[in-house]
């Protein structure tokens, strides 16, 4: 492999990594903090992409149009997420009823997909970038698309912002406390409901941001829902629930490895995410049994068991 090919493939890996990261970030936050496996995360991502095509389509593909889409779409969907959380999801926390949460988010994913078909039709949408972002830069003889740089910078910013929020603010402190013991936090007089609504809305906004970012990269179709959802789950679980740095590292590992695997065999390379996840999960299980602490320890979620019936 020549040096240029190596760097090219590394850049391709970074590009893939940040696509993965943005599909997983919202799911990660909601799952990690609220303990809700949001099966509608893929739908939010898809809806974000569709909405980006219509905002940019209306305002034009200038920088202004794109900045508007990057802000308006996540904010709108975050607000919708807050409404859904208050009306539907909230009633499922008390009994830690994962089954109901699963059904609820699954039903929502059907509804979102149905609405997208109704509003946008079945045909794919495309939207283009402002001219200065649609080219490529020559770096060390290899080509790095300008847009990949944008997604990398945004990805790092999001990770840093969430890290800062979690460890540097009171809201972050409360959120961490809520992960450990929701009841106790409530007993201490904290409005846990409001905190959860905020976190859920933020997670949905992040998911929508991922959708906006993928929109100019290809055709926007209803397939985005499933092509985003499965890898997102893999990234979140590999990185450790709720661990944004973990998700970033998992995305990088999967993206870069998959990119180099593609050079060897384009078909087998598709198995990379599963391979990475399996190795990490089994290693974690073995280490857990031996009492070793791992680089990033996952949130101890309660088993997905039904409430005791009878």
């Amino acid at each position: 492999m020549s040096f240029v090919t190596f760097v090219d493939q590394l850049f391709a890996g970074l590009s893939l990594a940040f696509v993965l990261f943005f599909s997983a970030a919202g799911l990660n936050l909601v799952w990690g903090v609220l303990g809700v496996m949001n099966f509608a995360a893929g739908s939010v991502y898809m809806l974000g992409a569709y909405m980006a095509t219509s905002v940019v389509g209306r305002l034009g593909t200038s920088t202004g149009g794109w900045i508007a889409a990057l802000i308006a779409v996540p904010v709108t969907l975050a607000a919708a997420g807050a409404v859904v959380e208050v009306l539907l999801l909230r009633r499922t926390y008390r009994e830690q009823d994962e089954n109901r949460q699963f059904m609820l988010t699954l039903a929502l994913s059907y509804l979102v997909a149905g609405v997208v078909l109704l509003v946008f039709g079945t045909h794919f949408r495309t939207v283009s970038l402002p001219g200065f972002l649609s080219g490529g830069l020559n770096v060390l003889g290899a080509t790095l698309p300008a847009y990949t740089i944008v997604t990398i910078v945004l990805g790092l910013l999001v990770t840093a912002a969430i890290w800062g929020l979690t460890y540097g603010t009171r809201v972050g402190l409360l959120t961490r406390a809520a992960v450990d013991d929701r009841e106790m936090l409530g007993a201490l007089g904290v409005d846990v409901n409001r905190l959860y609504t905020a976190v859920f809305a933020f997670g949905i906004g992040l998911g929508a941001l991922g959708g906006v970012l993928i929109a100019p990269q290809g055709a926007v179709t209803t397939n985005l829902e499933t092509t985003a959802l499965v890898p997102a789950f893999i990234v979140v679980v590999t990185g450790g629930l709720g661990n944004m740095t973990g998700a970033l590292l998992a995305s990088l590992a999967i993206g870069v490895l998959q990119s180099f695997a593609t050079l060897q065999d384009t078909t087998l390379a598709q198995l990379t995410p599963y391979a990475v996840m399996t190795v990490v999960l089994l290693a974690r299980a073995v280490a857990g049994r031996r009492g070793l602490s791992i680089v990033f320890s996952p949130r101890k979620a309660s088993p997905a068991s039904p409430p005791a019936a009878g």
Partner: protein
Amino acid sequence: MALEEMMAFTTVVRTRGSNEMKKTHRARKSASKGRSKVLAGCALVTILALVGAGCGSSGSGSSSRSLAAGAPIKIGYLASLTGFCSTFSQEYVKGAELAVKQVNARGGVLGHPLRLIVRDDKATPNVGVSQARDLVLSDDVKYLAGTCSSAVAKSVTQLVSNPSHVLYSVGVADPSVFSGGPDSYAFDTIPTATIEGDNAAAYVRAHPRWKRVAVISEDYSYGYQVTAAFKAAMAGSGQQIISQDYVPSGGSDYSSYIDKLIAEHPDVVYSTVITEDTVTLVKQALPLGLFKHAKYFGILDYGTIDAMAQPPVGAYGYTYYPSASIYHTPFSADLQTLGTAVANGGAAGDAFNQIQIIAQGIADAHSTDPTAVRDALGGATVQTVQGNVKIHKCNHLIAMPIAMGPVVGKTAAQPFAHFEPLRLVDTNGYFKC
């Protein structure tokens, strides 16, 4: 009938549900004796709904074989409204509706108007077969058309040829769907993957300066079939196929595949990556510089290249959909009266042809019996959006021309990305009947 009973059934469940909801919360610990009785009751209600529904519609299912004068000829249309190939489904439906509208405006066929019944096959064989079966059994449909999935088409073809005798007109690329010979009830409306690969090889052979050929395809049966046919037809050309790669269908990041192609230093990339995946591939290939490193030759329909902000000008494309001959034509204007923008045109034209072929077959056979229609269509020349085309008797494949040429941007005459000069390839030579 059946519907009303189903509605009644769901209402029962719902009203019961809302009454009982609060009680369930209060009295979760219940006695087991009463429970099982009520459970049995629930089972009974459910089964009765099923039985009732069945009885309700079984009467209408088996009506007499010949159609009463003026009664509509029903055509069941499988549209993949959801699922992997859903992107063109609304165009398919509009194209089929347009054909029905035009035939009916002419007074129908043999005095019968056409009636379209659209069902979502979810691009899934099990759903498609179940829908097709229900159309045949419940709606007494004798003509089926549609689906964009070869897998669905294959399952439906199995269903229609034996012993149902339902005529099925469908545009899918998998040649094995049409392996039933002259007795099959399935008719193709687009070139198969084999013809596509053969034709692409002829084009590459005509460019002897393309010495190193990299092939990139979709990672499913269509991609494998075209690639295999292309390779076979390239044998002995002196041009070298340096790689065959497969991209996952519906992927959102193809950069690593594109970089691999660039690293292989091909003279030309032959791509059978289709529709929305082409958009993704081309969009990501532009900044990575693929088009500077190599020529690009592949399946590109007009709607797809026109939808790209930067169409791959300088690439060579072909389309087996009729898109090149109907994009921005009176046909597409007619389509727009049905409330759809023709983004691709090819899918709508294909669906139009599927219905048109059924209508012509019935007219030619002077009968609404699918077997007579099948015999009339084998070897016939049919009117399509692209003009008169022959259906080969031995395999029911249609000799639809393939449009190809270099991609150019908007011109004064054609204000959209298109092929210029446009060449129409006669595919009759590919049939060995």
